[in-house]
């Protein structure tokens, strides 16, 4: 395959940013989600307000934040709140429109594992655990997942369900006082997915330019459901690439 003129990270960023069109606020993580949100602010969502899990609103960072708790996020922001208020009054109250999640494993219903590989009591790999992800999965109005695809991460069966996605049972799905609609989109290095409204199953919507369905199949642990009108992900525009490369990540920390 010839050089398409952009990296895998760059098309993941551009495809994700477009999903934020018209969104009012968003829970931001570090790394790719941070670039995604900042790109969306400059393109499809000029009114997007960034909310950091550390409790910062309206940040105007003067440098690329190294973590969601970077002091550059605080200086010049519009509000700082305690963790209790952030989780209780914003997230649990349903004020957060969109949040990003990822994980070591995802299943076809968008359930995520960030806890252990192997058995919980005797794990092969001990992962970080939930952090705020369990609550975010339940209460953010929409959840976007950005993950690279591989057999070991897109699995038939999670080793541990840290953050709930869909149940696969429309009667039962998210019935107990949840506020969010669960995962709505997954953006990978190979394509983009939605979730079937009836069954909650992940459904391939577009392939990135040059990617084949076969490659997708090779990199996931179940036979993917494919949208009848499977399309191609529009590549990053020159303006998107300029913003990413010149303004958002000039040192290529997250995008190379």
């Amino acid at each position: 395959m010839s050089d398409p003129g952009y990296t895998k990270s760059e098309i993941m960023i551009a495809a994700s940013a477009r999903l934020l069109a018209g969104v009012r606020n968003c829970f931001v993580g570090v790394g790719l989600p941070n670039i995604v949100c900042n790109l969306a602010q400059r393109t499809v969502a000029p009114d997007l307000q960034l909310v950091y899990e550390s409790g910062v609103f309206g940040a105007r960072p003067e440098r690329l934040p190294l973590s969601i708790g970077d002091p550059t996020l605080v200086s010049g922001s519009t509000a700082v709140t305690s963790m209790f208020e952030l989780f209780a009054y914003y997230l649990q109250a349903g004020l957060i429109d969109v949040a990003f999640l990822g994980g070591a494993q995802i299943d076809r219903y968008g359930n995520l594992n960030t806890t252990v590989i192997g058995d919980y009591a005797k794990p092969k790999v001990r992962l970080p655990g939930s952090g705020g992800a369990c609550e975010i999965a339940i209460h953010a109005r929409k959840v976007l997942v950005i993950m690279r695809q591989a057999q070991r991460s897109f699995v038939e069966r999670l080793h541990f369900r840290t953050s709930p996605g869909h149940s696969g049972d429309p009667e039962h799905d998210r019935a107990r006082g949840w506020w969010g609609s669960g995962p709505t989109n997954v953006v990978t290095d190979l394509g983009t997915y939605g979730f079937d409204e009836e069954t909650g199953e992940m459904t391939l919507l577009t392939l990135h330019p040059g990617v084949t369905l076969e490659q997708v199949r090779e990199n996931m642990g179940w036979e993917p459901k494919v949208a009848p009108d499977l399309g191609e992900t529009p590549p990053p525009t020159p303006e998107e690439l300029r913003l990413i490369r010149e303004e958002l990540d000039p040192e290529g920390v997250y995008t190379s």
Partner: protein
Amino acid sequence: MGSKVTTMRDAIAELVRDGDTVAIEGFTHLICFAAGHEIIRQRKRDLTLARMTPDVIYDQMIGAGVARKLIFSWLGNPGVGSLHAVRRRIEQQDPEPLEIEEYSHFGMVCRYVAGAANLPFFPIRSYYESDIPKVNPNIRWMRSPYEDGTEVAVVPPLRPDVTIVACQRATPEGDAQIWGLLGCQKEAAFAADRVIVVCEELVDESVIRRDPNRTVIPSIIVDAVVEQPFSCHPSFAQGYYDRDNAFYLKWDEISRDPEALDAWLKEWVYDLESHADYIEKMGPAHWESLKPEPATSGEVNYGRYA
């Protein structure tokens, strides 16, 4: 994010609807009398008024007939005595009954917290052996599912249709900063469906951004911003003006007599167009007399991380 700045008239006209549950909060401090007066002026009806400490502004509103129900924890003219218009409605159904639903202070606070946090109930170690739960079936009991098995009271969430919060300063988008007594304004605002912020001063966002820890109400929950100096008179705004205690004493007399109350409402609310007229009618010397000498906070350094 656009500006949400509007006039008090438009904010009340658009956001407060007949039959709404309305909370004008503030624990002695930053009680937005100007909003209450505008609600009276626009002759809103059948409101449920919620507030920890219904005081003179609720006596005025209830005396003016805007409310059918009151949710509260302490009813009085602080430091002075009774709210006579409220008492007439409770004691004599004069001129009509007033439904009441009462809690203790902490019960009211926890109702707002439950509303703000989207919790179906909030636990509180209170009401043991008190008669309050006997007259309020919304106060219920739950037992801890842990080994201690402690029995606690629970209160349900309170979710006002509209909460009105006065503050010292806010941006046009609605990021609002408060210092001095904080009451339960933050919780009441987050619990509400619609929020009106009334500020003594509208400031550029650069002022707010210099001290983000001082922001109490974030713009994300605010629907309208009204700039209205002295909106809290006769209550006070820390650093801006003092409580007008003479008025609290005078209100005791006025509200004892329904005719005097009506005359006061006519002179100071109905016959005026807005709070600007009220300020003018009160006269500059009065406002000057309520102004404190300065006592500034000093600065802290947030640091520039570039």
